[in-house]
C-alpha cells in the first residue's frame, strides 16, 4: 500500500485506532466521560478527514475497495449519524448502573463495519464489513444484560443474523463457482454477455438477496425487527434502524449498479414483490401496535419498501432519490428514538403509548420535536420526509414503475393514520397530575435536548430548502464511475 492509499482509508484507520485506544483506556481507568470524549473526537476526526478527499476522482485500492464520491458521501452520513447516536447514548447510559464504557468500543467497531461495507468492491471486504458490523451489534443489542428482553433480543438477532450470513456466503460461493472471480467488476464482465442467468448463478444471486434482505429487514425477512427494536436499548435501536441498514443499502446499490442487475427481469420481479410486500405489511402491522418502539419498527420496514421503489428505478435519479430519502430517514429516525431514549428512566424504556399520554402538557418542547419527527416519517409537507418521498415518487414515475408508485401513495395514506395516532395521544389532556419523574443532571439533560433541537432544525431546513442537499448529492456523485452513463 502506498501513502495515497493510506490517505484515502484515513476514516477507517482513525476509527480502528480509536477503538484500540478506548480499549486500553478502559483497562487503565474506567471513566464514562473520558471514553465518551475519545469516541466523539474520533467520529469528528474521521468525518473531517473526508474533506481531504473532496473533489477527488475515484481511487481504487485493488481489489478490495474503491473510494469514490458515492462512498465518501455514505461514510460521511454514517459517521455523522454515529456521532449523534453517541451523544444520545451518553445521556441514556449515564443514568444506568451497568458498566457503560465498553459500549463505545462496540459502537465504534460497528460504525467501522458499516463504513467498510459502503466502499467494498469485493466479496471478502463485503463479508468482513458485514460481520464486523453484526458481531458488534449482537453485543450492543444485549448490552443491558440484566434485562430479560435485552438478552432475548440479542440471541434472536444472533441466530437470525448468522442464519442470513450463511445464506449470503453460500450465494457468494455459488457466484464465485460460476464466474471464477469475487470482484464486483469481474462478475460484471463475466455475466455481461449472458442474456439469461444460468440456474446456478440465479440461485447464487437469490441466496445473496435473502442474506441482504434479512439485514435490511424487508418482508418476508422482517420477523426479527420488532422484537429486536423492542428489546434493544433505545440508542442501539436507532443505530440498527439507520447506520446498519444504510450501510447495507449502500452496498446493495453499488453491487447492483456495477453488475447491472437491472437487465434481468427475474431479479426485478423479486425486488418489486419485496418492495410491495414491505410497504403493505409494514404499514398494516404497525396499525395493530401499542408499543412506540414496535410502531417505529414496522414503520421502518415500510420505509425500506419506499426506498426499494427508488432503487428499482435503477438510474442516476433513482440513486439520488435513495440517498436523499436516506438522509431524511436518518434524521427523523434518530430523532424519534432520541426522544424515546430521553424519556426513558432507569427501569425501562419509555415505549408504551401510555408513557406519551399528555406529553405536550408535561414537556412541550420534547413533544414538539417528537411530533415533527413523526410528521416527517408520515411525509407531511415542510418536513424532510415529504421532499424525500416526492423525490422517490419522481424517480418511480420517471421510469414508469406505475404499480410501485401507486402502492407507495396508497401506503403513505395508511401510514399517516398510525403516526397521527401517536401525536393525538401526546396532545391529550392528562387526567391526573402525574408524579414528576426525577430529572437527569442538568448538563446531561442539556446535551440530549441540544441534539434533538439540532435534529429538528435540520429536519425543517431540509424540508424547506432541499436544493442545498440535492446539490451536494449531485456534486459528489459526479465523481463516482459507477454512475457513469446512467
Amino acid at each position: 500500500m502506498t501513502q495515497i492509499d493510506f490517505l484515502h482509508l484515513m476514516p477507517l484507520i482513525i476509527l480502528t485506532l480509536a477503538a484500540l485506544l478506548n480499549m486500553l483506556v478502559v483497562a487503565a481507568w474506567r471513566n464514562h466521560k473520558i471514553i465518551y470524549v475519545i469516541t466523539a473526537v474520533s467520529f469528528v476526526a474521521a468525518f473531517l478527514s473526508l474533506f481531504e478527499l473532496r473533489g477527488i476522482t475515484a481511487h481504487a485500492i485493488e481489489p478490495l475497495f474503491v473510494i469514490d464520491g458515492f462512498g465518501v458521501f455514505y461514510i460521511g452520513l454514517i459517521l455523522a449519524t454515529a456521532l449523534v447516536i453517541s451523544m444520545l447514548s451518553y445521556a441514556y447510559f449515564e443514568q444506568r448502573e451497568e458498566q457503560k464504557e465498553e459500549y463505545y468500543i462496540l459502537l465504534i467497531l460497528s460504525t467501522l463495519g458499516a463504513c467498510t461495507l459502503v466502499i467494498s468492491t469485493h466479496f471478502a471486504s463485503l463479508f468482513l464489513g458485514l460481520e464486523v458490523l453484526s458481531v458488534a451489534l449482537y453485543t450492543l443489542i444485549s448490552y443491558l444484560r440484566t434485562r430479560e428482553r435485552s438478552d432475548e433480543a440479542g440471541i434472536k438477532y444472533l441466530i437470525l443474523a448468522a442464519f442470513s450470513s450463511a445464506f449470503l456466503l453460500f450465494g457468494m460461493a455459488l457466484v464465485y463457482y460460476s464466474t471464477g472471480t469475487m470482484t464486483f467488476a469481474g462478475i460484471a464482465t463475466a455475466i455481461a454477455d449472458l442474456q439469461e442467468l444460468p440456474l446456478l448463478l440465479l440461485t447464487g444471486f437469490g441466496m445473496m438477496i435473502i442474506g441482504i434482505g434479512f439485514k435490511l429487514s424487508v418482508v418476508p425477512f422482517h420477523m426479527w425487527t420488532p422484537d429486536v427494536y423492542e428489546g434493544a436499548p433505545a440508542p442501539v435501536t436507532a443505530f440498527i434502524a439507520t447506520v446498519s441498514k444504510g450501510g447495507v443499502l449502500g452496498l446493495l446499490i453499488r453491487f447492483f449498479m456495477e453488475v447491472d442487475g437491472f437487465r434481468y427481469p427475474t431479479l426485478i420481479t423479486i425486488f418489486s414483490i419485496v418492495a410491495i410486500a414491505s410497504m403493505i405489511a409494514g404499514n398494516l402491522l404497525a396499525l395493530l401496535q401499542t408499543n412506540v418502539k414496535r410502531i417505529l419498527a414496522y414503520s421502518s420496514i415500510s420505509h425500506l419498501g419506499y426506498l426499494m421503489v427508488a432503487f428499482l428505478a435503477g438510474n442516476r435519479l433513482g440513486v439520488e432519490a435513495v440517498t436523499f430519502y436516506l438522509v431524511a430517514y436518518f434524521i427523523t429516525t434518530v430523532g424519534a428514538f432520541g426522544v424515546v431514549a430521553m424519556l426513558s428512566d432507569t427501569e425501562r424504556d419509555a415505549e408504551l403509548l401510555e408513557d406519551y399520554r399528555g406529553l405536550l402538557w408535561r414537556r412541550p418542547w420534547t413533544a414538539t420535536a417528537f411530533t415533527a419527527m413523526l410528521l416527517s416519517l408520515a411525509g407531511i409537507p415542510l418536513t424532510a420526509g415529504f421532499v424525500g418521498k416526492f423525490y422517490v415518487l419522481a424517480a418511480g414515475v420517471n421510469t414508469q414503475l406505475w404499480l410501485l408508485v401507486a402502492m407507495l401513495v396508497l401506503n403513505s395514506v395508511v401510514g399517516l393514520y398510525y403516526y397521527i395516532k401517536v401525536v393525538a395521544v401526546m396532545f391529550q389532556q392528562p387526567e391526573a397530575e402525574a408524579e414528576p419523574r426525577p430529572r437527569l443532571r442538568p448538563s446531561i439533560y442539556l446535551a440530549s435536548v441540544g441534539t434533538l433541537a439540532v435534529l429538528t432544525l435540520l429536519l425543517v431546513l431540509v424540508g424547506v430548502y432541499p436544493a442545498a442537499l440535492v446539490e451536494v448529492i449531485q456534486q459528489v456523485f459526479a465523481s463516482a464511475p459507477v454512475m457513469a452513463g446512467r
Partner: protein
Amino acid sequence: MSASTMEAALLLAGVLFMLGLISVLIRRNIIFMLISVEIMLNAAGLAFIVAGSRWVQPDGQVMFIFILTMAAAEVSVGLALILQIYHQLKTLDSDAASFMKG
C-alpha cells in the same frame, strides 16, 4: 479434480446446508440452533473451497479462513448470551425465551 467430482462436492455442500437449515427451523433448544447455524456456515465454507479449486485459486480457502474466524467470534458471543439466558430462565427452550409478541 474432474468436473463431475466438482459437482458432487458442490452437491455435498448443498446437502449439508439444507440439513443445517432444516435443523435450525425444527430445533427448539438454543444451543442446537447455534450448532445448526454453524453447520450452514461450514457448508458455505466448503462451497467456497470447491469453487476455489475449480478455478485453481487460493481465494476460496482464504474465504474459508475468514468464515472460520467469524464463526468463532459469533459462537463466543452466542454462548455468553445463552449463559445469561439460562441464568434468568433456567431453561434453554427457545419458546420460553419469548416475552415479546405482536
